[in-house]
C-alpha cells in the first residue's frame, strides 16, 4: 500500500508545486516541468504496470488543471514512461550530463508529440503555437534537464530511505 500511496502523494505534491510555486512571475519563463522528471524517474525505476497506471493518473491530473481541452497528457505521459522503460537498460544514467541529456531529449520528444497531436486534432491553423516552441518550451526543457539530475538523486535517496530493502519500491526494479 505504501508503495502506491507515497508515489501518488508525491505526484500530487509535484503537480501542486508546478501550478503554484513554479508558476510565480519571476520563474515562469524557465519553469521546470518537475512532473515530467518524476514520470521519467518512475519510467527507469518502477514496475511497468503500477508505474504505468500511476503515470496515466498524473497525466490525467495535468489535463484537468490545464487549458488543454483534449486530454493530451494522459496519452503523452504513459507513452514517455514506456519509452523510458524500453531504454532504461540500454543507456547509462548515473552521471549529471547523461541524466540531463536523457530528460532534455524526452522533454523535446513530448513537445513535438503535443504539437503533432494539437495540429492533428485542431481543425484550424495554429500559427501562434509554433513560436512557443522556441520562446517557452525550449528554455523550459533546458531548465527541466538541468534540475533533473538533482531530483533524480533526491528521489533515489528518498526511496532507498523509505523502503527498507534497497532496489525495491519506486526507486527499485
Amino acid at each position: 500500500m505504501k508503495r502506491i500511496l507515497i508515489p501518488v502523494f508525491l505526484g500530487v505534491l509535484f503537480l501542486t508545486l508546478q501550478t503554484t510555486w513554479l508558476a510565480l512571475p519571476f520563474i515562469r519563463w524557465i519553469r521546470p516541468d518537475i512532473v515530467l522528471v518524476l514520470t521519467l524517474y518512475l519510467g527507469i525505476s518502477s514496475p511497468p504496470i503500477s508505474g504505468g497506471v500511476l503515470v496515466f493518473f498524473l497525466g490525467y491530473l495535468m489535463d484537468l488543471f490545464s487549458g488543454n481541452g483534449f486530454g493530451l497528457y494522459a496519452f503523452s505521459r504513459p507513452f514517455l514512461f514506456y519509452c523510458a522503460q524500453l531504454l532504461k537498460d540500454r543507456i547509462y544514467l548515473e552521471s549529471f550530463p547523461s541524466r540531463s541529456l536523457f530528460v532534455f531529449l524526452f522533454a523535446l520528444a513530448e513537445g513535438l508529440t503535443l504539437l503533432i497531436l494539437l495540429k492533428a486534432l485542431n481543425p484550424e491553423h495554429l500559427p501562434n503555437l509554433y513560436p512557443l516552441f522556441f520562446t517557452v518550451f525550449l528554455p523550459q526543457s533546458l531548465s527541466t534537464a538541468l534540475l533533473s539530475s538533482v531530483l533524480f538523486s533526491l528521489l533515489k535517496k528518498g526511496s532507498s530511505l523509505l523502503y527498507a530493502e534497497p532496489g525495491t519500491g519506486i526507486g527499485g526494479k
Partner: protein
Amino acid sequence: MRIRDFLFRRYAIPTVVILLLLSALILISLRVKERKGVAFMDGLLMEISSPFQKGSTSVINKIKGVWEGYLFLVHLHKENEQLKKRMADLQRENDQMREMVLSHERLRKLLQFRETLSSTVIAAEMVGRDPSSWFKSVTINKGEKDGVRKGMAVISSEGVIGQILKTAPSHSVVLLITDYNSAIDSIIQRTRAKAIVEGGGENRCQLKYLLRAEDVVPGDKVITSGLGGNFPKGLMIGEIRKVDKKGHGIFQYAELVPSVDFTRLEEVLVIKESPPPPAEEKVKKVKKAK
C-alpha cells in the same frame, strides 16, 4: 479462462500498456467529439487535488505579505511621495470621470439604452496556474456549487480575463484570453471597427479579421462587442501595440497587449448571468426566423 490467462499472465505488461494508451486515446476522442471528459471523474479528482493548490497558494501569499510588509521597506519614503502625487492625479481624473458618468447617464436615459452588463457576479480567488507552458489557464476557488458554469465570462477590474473551461463542484478552470484556443468578438473603441481577439501565448493577443480599410493605430483600445453571448458589451480587452498591414488580402493584423496583467492575477469576477443579446444580434435572429 484461457484468454484471461493469455492476456493477464503471459502478456500482462503489453496488455496493460495497450489498455492504458487505448484509454488515453478514448479520452482524447471523447473530449474532441463532445468537448467534455468523464465529468464525474474530472470533478472528483479536481476536488481532491485543488485543496493542495489552495494551501500552497496561501503559503505563497503569506510569504509575499511578510516580504512586502516588513522586509521590502527600503524605498518607502520615496514611494510615499510618488503615491501622494499619483493620488492627486487620480483625484483630478476621478472628478473628470464623474462628470463623464453623469453625462453618460443622461444620454443613456435619453436613448433608452438597456443595461448591458449583468449585475450578478461571483468573486473568486485564483488558486493555481496551468501546469503546462503550452496552455494558458488558471484554477479558481468557485465552482458549480456557487453557480459557475462552463462558458461564463471571467473579468477583473482591469478587463477581460477569459472564460470558464472546466467546472468541478467547488473549483473551476478559466481559459485565459492569451491561450491560443481563445477567441473573442471585439471592437476598436475609437473607430468601432470589428475584429476577433485571439490568444497569442505569453501575455499577448492578436487581432484578426480586421478589415484593411479600417483606421487602426497603436494605442487604440479594444473592447468586447457583446456578440457571441458570453461577454457583455464594452469590457476592456487591451491596447493595440503593433499594426501589420504587410502582405496581401483584405485583412490587416494587429498585436494586442491585454489590459490585465496575468502574472499578477489574484482575484477575479465570474459573470453569472449572461447579458441580453445586443440589438444587432436580435435583428439577425429575427431575419433568420423570417
